[in-house]
């Protein structure tokens, strides 16, 4: 309750950055300008009500009780009651309007950031780790939710309360205001020091919590090895050490806050002692009335509480600012693979030609591909082979325009892929990745990823096209079976079948396959082979191959080595050439002989 959201030094925004962030927030929030304005007015009213209470008490004492005027006393009471009701009504309204503004803003932010992420090319996803991107959309935005739910309200209200209270106190008695202001600097200084220390303490706690959770998780997930080697005792000792470190950091952070809260408590009572002492003296001199002194003691908390609140909110605001500036960085990223303004649809069929392309991944100094040219005819099957990291997967990705080459071009039926409409590109050329990736939802939902508009009949046809109708019919709810978290209900082979069915649903002219390196469960392995066979029939296929059986079925083989096409030809031609391919094939034969 006293240290929300720690802010690390590198997260702190400079003044200029903060100004930009605030400016952009207001721009993004402009659709809710009216709600915002209403919310602001509500806050003004409730703040004024909070201050009116003590004033009415003063009026009641001075003009009613001390003047022995019971009518005036009744007026004060009635006014006080009205103020309380108004405070309640506007209090409700301020909550609703502020929350509506804040939450609507977060919704707009979520949608904008996600849409922008979706627009980015693969290169963006290579640069940014998946975990970081997810954190932007979740933790970073949620860190602002707290601010939106009550922080913003407190922030505005506290600021206004300080200003109003100061004005009010000054008009009541300038002498007492000076006394109150003498205590203020002490309070502010203490608050600032406390925020700094507690922020540091909080960051340490957060780090230790993380370390402790990792130790905990490691212990639980590795329990079999730990038990197998009878190392329970040692592991528990290790965990205890990390757990005690965590305790120490908690203890430290409590210690940091202890003196501050003690001081605040003392400061409040001390200020009223001062008010009574000096105020009483002023009453004796006839400078002020007793009612003023009483109102002053009641109003002092209106001056001190907001200072405390503001300092506590400081971190929340800062971490929200840091989160926002990271989110704006995503919003500012230009998509690299935008559709060309004059884009045309790709022809129904044609040769896929790679002409002198050079490509390197962002941030990498060496080229992944260097002046590569290759041509694939209609219905031809090309196998890409070569050592890991030589560039065969990169070449396949460029042939489907998951990236654009830095030099050279990839054309399909003489249309440069850069000039093609995105929709026609995705219809003609389909990439089937190594592992079948499933989304939450049913198997049917997962096929519709490939074609949102597909009818149930089309989906059945796609499943039939890869010969998996019977397999999925054995599922309890058929194609409407929920795949559960990431398809955990399905075996690796079944996930691959779904991935192939997706491709069949699109019915592309060109298929780009990345062959799996790991083995599937023996049960579905043959089914997947079979489905692949059917899918490849009649299509142009580019396959990143790891198995000799696949390679032998290809019309042509390209050996990719050191970012270039080292050899190109049919299996027999390349064997006869006695080069790299020959060496690879021999290595294979040898390993088969020994086992």
């Amino acid at each position, binding site marked *: 309750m006293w240290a929300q959201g720690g802010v690390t030094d590198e997260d702190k925004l400079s003044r200029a950055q903060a100004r930009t962030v605030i400016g952009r927030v207001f721009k993004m929030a402009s659709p809710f300008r009216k709600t915002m304005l209403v919310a602001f007015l509500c806050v003004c009213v409730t703040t004024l009500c909070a201050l009116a209470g003590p004033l009415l008490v003063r009026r009641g004492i001075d003009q009613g009780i001390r003047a022995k005027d019971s009518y005036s006393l009744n007026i004060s009471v009635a006014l006080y009651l009205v103020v309380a009701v108004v405070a309640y009504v506007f209090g409700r309204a301020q909550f609703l309007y502020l929350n509506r503004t804040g939450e609507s803003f977060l919704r707009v932010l979520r949608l904008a950031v996600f849409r922008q992420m979706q627009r980015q090319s693969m290169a963006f996803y290579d640069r940014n780790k998946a975990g970081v991107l997810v954190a932007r959309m979740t933790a970073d935005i949620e860190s602002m939710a707290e601010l939106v739910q009550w922080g913003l309200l407190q922030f505005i209200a506290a600021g206004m309360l300080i200003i109003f209270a100061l004005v009010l106190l000054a008009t009541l008695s300038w002498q007492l205001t000076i006394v109150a202001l003498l205590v203020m600097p002490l309070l502010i200084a203490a608050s600032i020091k406390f925020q700094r220390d507690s922020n540091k303490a909080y960051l340490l706690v957060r780090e230790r919590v993380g370390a402790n959770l990792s130790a905990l998780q490691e212990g639980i997930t590795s329990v079999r090895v730990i038990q197998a080697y009878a190392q329970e005792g040692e592991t528990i000792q290790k965990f205890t050490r990390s757990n005690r470190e965590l305790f120490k950091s908690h203890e430290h952070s409590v210690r940091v806050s*202890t003196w501050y*809260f003690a001081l605040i408590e003392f400061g409040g009572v001390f200020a009223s002692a001062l008010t009574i002492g000096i105020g009483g003296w002023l009453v004796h001199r006839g400078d002020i009335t007793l009612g003023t*002194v009483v109102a002053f003691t009641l109003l002092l908390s209106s001056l001190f509480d907001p200072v405390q609140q503001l300092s506590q909110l400081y971190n929340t605001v800062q971490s929200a600012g840091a989160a926002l500036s990271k989110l704006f960085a995503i919003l500012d990223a230009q998509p690299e693979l935008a559709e060309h303004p004059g884009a045309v649809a790709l022809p129904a069929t044609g040769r896929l030609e790679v002409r002198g392309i050079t490509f390197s991944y962002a941030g990498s100094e060496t080229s992944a591909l260097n002046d590569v040219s290759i041509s694939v005819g209609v219905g031809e099957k090309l196998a890409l082979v070569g050592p890991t990291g030589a560039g065969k997967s990169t070449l396949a990705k460029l042939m489907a325009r998951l990236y654009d080459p830095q030099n050279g071009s990839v054309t399909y039926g003489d249309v440069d892929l850069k000039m093609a409409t995105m929709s026609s590109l995705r219809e003609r050329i389909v990439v089937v990745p190594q592992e079948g990736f499933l989304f939450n939802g049913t198997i049917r939902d997962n096929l519709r990823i490939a074609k*949102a508009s597909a009818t149930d009949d089309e989906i059945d046809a796609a499943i039939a096209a890869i010969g998996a109708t019977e397999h999925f019919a054995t599922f309890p709810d058929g194609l409407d079976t929920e795949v559960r978290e990431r398809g955990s209900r399905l075996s690796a082979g079944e996930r691959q079948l779904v991935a192939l069915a997706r491709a069949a649903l699109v019915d592309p002219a060109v298929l780009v396959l990345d062959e799996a390196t790991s083995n599937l469960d023996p049960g579905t392995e043959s089914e997947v082979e079979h489905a692949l066979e059917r899918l490849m029939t009649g299509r142009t296929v580019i396959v990143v191959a790891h198995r000799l059986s696949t390679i032998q079925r290809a019309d042509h083989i390209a050996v990719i080595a050191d970012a270039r096409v080292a050899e190109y030809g049919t299996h027999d031609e390349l064997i006869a050439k006695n080069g790299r391919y020959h060496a690879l094939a021999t290595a294979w034969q040898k390993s088969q002989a020994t086992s």
Partner: protein
Amino acid sequence: MTSIESDSEVAARLEIEDTQRSEGWRLLREALTAQRRNLLLGALVGILWASFKVAVPQMTKYAINDGIEKNGPLLRWALIIAGLGVLTGVLSGMRRYIAFRESRWAETLFRERLFSHVLKLHVGYHDKAQTGQLMSRASSDLMQIQAFIVMIPITLSNVAQIFAVTAILFITDPVLAVIALIPLPFVNLSARRFSHRIHPASVAVQAEQAQLANVVEESVSGVRVVKGFGAEQVQFDKLEKEADDILRESMKAARIRSSFIPAIDVLPALGLVGVLGVGGHRVLNGEITIGDLVAFNVYLTLLIWPLRNIGMIVALGQRAAAALVRINEVMSTKSEIVDPIEPKRLVSSADGLVGAVKFDKVAFGYSAEYPVLRNFSVEIKAGESIAVVGATGSGKSTIARLLLRFYDTQSGHVFLDGIDVRKLSLKDLREQIGVVFEDTVLFNDTVRSNIAFAKPSADNATIERAAKLSGAHEFIQRLPLGYETVIGERGFSLSGGQRQRIAIARAIVADPRVLVLDDATSAVDPSKEGEIRDAMKTVMSGRTTIVIAHRPGTIALADRVILLDEGRVAAIGSHDELVATSARYREVLANMTAASDPERVTN
């Protein structure tokens, strides 16, 4: 509850819940009893704080009546109030420190007890338990308990404060006291109802946030698929739906906040209005002094926070109770695999060749309906190496688990050097069996600690010898910090083959009588298979070894081969013998060759 329960069923269920709840509270009571001295001190400090806090308005009253109205010794009153300020300040600091320290300490000890309990639970428990569930027992559930404990001293002082203030108000002016206090119970009631209603609402918001996170996660991880099929809009629509859901649920929570928080703020003001109205007239009538009236006002403000807090602690207590029940569920689970009462000792290795293993008519299944081993018998001589071969699900890996006594057999016996494994202490038994599991587990620690895992006291020479034997020494030396390089999930990442060689080195350091190698070269680059096989060969010499073979290449390492089929020994003998005599063996071998796919030519 959607199904209709009979009365007796409801009664039975409630009874179980009751016992679980009381068991849970017992856990908490034990923990608190252990810390009773400090907690009592905290309570005492809290009560002292409350009494000084209550004295402040009383002194203010005297100051106004005596000091200001009657021109009395004003400075004295001001100094007394300032002195009280020092006392309340110091005491509130102490109360806070004790409350937080004790609650964190209780949480810390709870976590240690939980961890060591979970770590000792039998493997069968871990097969069913989800890591995430256990993690949240030890983190978020304990947090709920900490949040409750921290409120205990505060609540006690709050209660003291409420009693003291109420008493003073009634002594000063009973009529005015009644009027002033009428709205206040509603503060408490509202705070309690608010806590009750806001909790499920914020849980609902969190649930929606989690769903949105799922969509983002799958869109990012599956970006190839999304891009490949141009499914951006599909994912965007999903996200928009989740974002709308969050907005809807958040606004529900906002409505709950808006209907409670302003009310909680405004209710005490009604008391103040009453005091001013009725009290003002009483001053006019000369029934009370003006100082009384001001003190009344101040006292009322002193009641607001304690009443709110007490409303909150009820809700906190309920959440803590639920957390305690969940923790108790884990803590009350007994390990099914425990040390015998009077464990026997293994014969010393000085007395000749050790490491003889015998399975005698063993029957076992992970669940009663599906037997994995039936009437499985085999005798492995000390120093012999044997390969276990069989189709997937034939029970190969189960053999190692039974030898380690991860599970007990349903019938039949497992012997190590002539002693039933159930008659040995778990530590003695497991120290004598080194297993290299199918999936290599590396700890977030240095290479050295990972290798010395089984014997943390092992010296450098032993560790390096083991690394050399397993063929790991060379690549370890090339790591940035050599043996001091931190590996594991958050450290330097190693290839599958490197991980495996570290695991083998770990088994060598353990220097066991029996070595079990669950050959999982599936994770290994094909070109490295040969190297690992060499490492295995070195380690096996002169030691009883059981190789669970998934690949033809590893079979060649063993003296004898057991063919497992449907939980029984289908054939036993040397590789050549089995090839010659067993058709089933040839079949399994052929399947293995196909599955292990030596056709891969990459690298």
